[in-house]
């Protein structure tokens, strides 16, 4: 299967071609439009699960449909259909067209296909992998998990993969197709030691095929799940209140995602409802801080060859040496600001309109060895693994939940801690970043970002970073 095949190859058997797309776009633009696009999607997902020492559940799903969007200024009309007959497609187009009242129809340009980048080269597509070939993976993970520690009493394992094909056709004649693989693995275990019991989980995700699962990567996933359960058994809740916080390299990127990333999404800024709406070109962080949102990280869960409105993707520098350089743009906001789209227009599926979204967000490495950062803290909290976060875009207040970490005493990690929410204000926390490590790690976890009821896969990363203070929701 070629990445750069003709766009209609995949959807051809469904009767979708440039001529049909032109008819549907003509209906979408019959009342006038500044922009319009069609988004065809065909996704097949397979998941298998193992519990009670048996591979005892499987789920297959197919998602097929087309979304049509009509844009007039910053107004959007949107509809979708799960039927690919011309009548259904035209009906959806005419519903979306109701947003426009100019009465002056726009004639679409006959679509021609355009080649796109290849940020997720895939050797073995999931569609070519028999279910029976997936079984040894999950069986091994279970076996290795039990073997890792005799205190492991229960193991749950799952493996899910998606082969998604999209075809985007625009009013201006642009037509692109993208094959988007995704795999996600999870190992969880319950560990019992005397009267104490705890759980540990680890998951991996990537836009790639079966070749992703090297033995080293699989064994690392299992070890981390077991180690987390083991550490949780001896962990306590940390003290409550404000304290210095050191964020470990990797999934600490959740801080960037919540404290900066959402506030940089340009729809919030063009409406004036982001706390960063008047900060373009201004200093918002110390000079060591450079933050990017990067669609080009090979195989990353947040990688994208082309965005969901057919704009080329890129590595976007949001904050450069502490200065806010740009927002994350879709076509609507790019037109509003008079700039090019950053290729950040994304949607959960054909059922959802495009929004500016993050892809893989991380901080570039700084000058400090991580051990020097740790040594600089007298008393504080070291945050290692995370569960979830949330932000209030306008107020800038954000929170993220730390599954596991350590107390820092006299520059050393002393006591393990767990299950604590950290809360702060985005701009204030950015200003209070005191040290940036030289050890950037882009996390391999299966992060999913929610916005306006839409979920999209993202990645995040971070070097070790010291923040002067955050409010820690401990119980002591």
């Amino acid at each position, binding site marked *: 299967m070629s990445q750069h095949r003709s766009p209609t190859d995949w959807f051809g058997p469904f009767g979708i071609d440039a001529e049909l797309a032109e008819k549907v776009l003509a209906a979408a633009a019959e009342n006038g439009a500044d922009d319009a696009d069609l988004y065809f999607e065909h996704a097949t997902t*397979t998941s298998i699960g193992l519990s*009670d020492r048996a591979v005892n559940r499987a789920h297959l*799903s197919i998602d097929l449909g087309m979304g049509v969007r009509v844009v007039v200024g910053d107004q959007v009309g949107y509809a979708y259909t799960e039927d690919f007959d011309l009548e259904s497609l035209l009906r959806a187009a005419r519903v979306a067209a109701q947003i426009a009242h100019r009465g002056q129809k726009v004639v679409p340009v006959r679509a021609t296909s355009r080649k796109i980048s290849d940020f997720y080269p895939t050797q073995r597509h999931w569609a070519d992998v028999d279910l029976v070939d997936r079984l040894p993976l999950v069986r091994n993970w279970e076996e290795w998990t039990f073997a890792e520690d005799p205190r492991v009493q229960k193991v749950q394992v799952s493996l899910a993969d998606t082969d998604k094909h999209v075809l985007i056709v625009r009013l201006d004649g642009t037509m692109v197709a993208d094959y988007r693989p995704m795999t996600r693995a999870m190992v969880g275990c319950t560990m019992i030691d005397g009267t104490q019991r705890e759980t540990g989980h680890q998951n991996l995700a990537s836009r790639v095929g079966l070749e992703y699962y090297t033995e080293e990567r699989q064994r690392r996933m299992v070890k981390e799940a077991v180690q987390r359960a083991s550490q949780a058994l001896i962990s306590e809740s940390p003290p409550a209140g404000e304290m210095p916080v050191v964020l470990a390299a990797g999934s600490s990127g959740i801080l960037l995602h919540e404290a900066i990333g959402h506030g940089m999404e340009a729809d919030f800024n063009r409406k004036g409802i982001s706390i960063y709406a008047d900060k373009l070109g201004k200093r918002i962080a110390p000079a060591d801080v450079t933050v990017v949102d990067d669609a080009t990280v090979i195989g990353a869960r947040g990688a994208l060859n082309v965005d969901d409105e057919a704009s080329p993707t890129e590595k976007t520098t949001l904050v450069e040496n502490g200065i806010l350089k740009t927002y994350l743009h879709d076509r609507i906001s790019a037109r509003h600001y008079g700039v090019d789209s950053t290729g950040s227009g994304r949607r959960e599926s054909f059922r959802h309109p495009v929004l500016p979204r993050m892809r893989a967000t991380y901080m570039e490495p700084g000058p400090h060895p991580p051990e020097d950062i740790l040594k600089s803290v007298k008393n504080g909290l070291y945050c290692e693994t995370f569960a979830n976060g949330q932000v209030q875009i306008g107020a800038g207040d*954000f*929170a993220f939940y730390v599954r596991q970490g350590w107390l820092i005493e006299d520059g050393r990690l002393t006591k393990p801690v767990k299950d604590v929410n950290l809360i702060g204000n985005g*701009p204030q926390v950015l200003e209070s970043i005191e040290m940036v490590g030289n050890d950037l790690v882009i996390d391999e976890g299966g992060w999913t970002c929610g916005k306006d009821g839409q979920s999209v896969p993202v990645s995040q990363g971070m070097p070790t970073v010291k923040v002067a203070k955050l409010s820690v929701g*401990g119980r002591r």
Partner: protein
Amino acid sequence: MSELLDLAQRVVRQAQALGAQEVVASVGKSISTTITRRDGKVEQATESTSRGLSFSVLVDNRFSSHGTSDLRPDAISEFIKQAIAATRILEQDPERALPEAPLCGRGATAAALDVLDSAYNARSAEARATDAELLEQTAEKANIPSVISRSSQVADGCSQTARVDSNGFSDTHEDAWFMWGAEATFQEGGKRPEVSSYFGARYLTDLPEPQKIAQQLEDRARERAGSKPIDSGSYPLILLNRATGKLLGAFGGPLAGSALHEQRSCLAGKLGSRVGSAKFTLLDDPTIPRGLASRPWDGEGLIARPFPVVSEGVLDSYYINVYYGRKLGMKPTTGGRSNWVIPPGDQSWEAIAKAYPKAILVDGFLGGNSNATSGDFSFGIRGALIEHGVRTQAISEMNVSGNLTDIFEKLVEIANDPYRYSSVVSPTLVFEDVRFSGT
């Protein structure tokens, strides 16, 4: 609806013909419309009509479940073949067998559930557009100093489901919903705090008037102004009625049969034991007329029946579906919650709060999570410091922490204000000696 039922029956027959001993097929269709207005015009209008088929099969005691939106007859036939073939590769899991037929059925008539407003089908596109414009114009009148942006939203939808089980159970269900709301963002120093007021209901006439939404937006903006963290410490917690779902949701996690079976429930072994004060009673009632989580049967087709989860502090029931019931040797209740109801008290929360020199009112959460195994929870909060029943300081950037095994022991009072616009029909709850972290 008959078209959906026909398709579900066809899928069951096809799967059985291909070797499935047991089959459940469900076909759904949903329609929704959303109009968002900002700055005097429609910002986004979305209309969707969605259909889908889901089915599960048991083949030689092997189980799998499937879903597709590709409803072309040939595609469905091919998909069923693939699904059956995939199932044969799995290992046996006989506990997945369907529930015995007498357990399945309807717990309330459609008339008793009353979740389908006839006004939905009569509603025109023009009526939606007019309502959206009226709501926006009314919300514009909310007096919000230094306002930057306002938006309003009108949405509604309906869904139809047809279900056929090979054990003989088959039924259909239809419901509708309506949602109105408004948001505003205002300037406050370098911050741009946002406030919102949204309401959902089964009947259009059960939604509040636009004036109430506008007034609530104005009140919330005033109450939010000047928010900041206060000193860390233990305070009484006044958990406002509309915010109770977060804490109750965390409590529900370790009640699940899956959590018990996987030995990751902090409430394991607590059936019949105290899990809260005598003030704590929690009912699960899927039969509330016009309830937002009302249903005739649950996800396994089990008859929907009200049951107590906690009675005067004593744990009465876990959430046990048929599968985990067999695994655990327990009688099934239901696999997932419906409407949660906490019976109201006699006084307003303001009257209760007068007794406390200082208490923290929580009206919303920001992030946070809980650990079902240990029971620990930690949530970000927003709200206000209440001194002798009076708001004296808006609060943000603080956390509340505790443990699910003892937080409800601290429940001391229940107000008289059950929240009607949610499937968590709870009054405001008052707890004592709860840990907050701020400055």
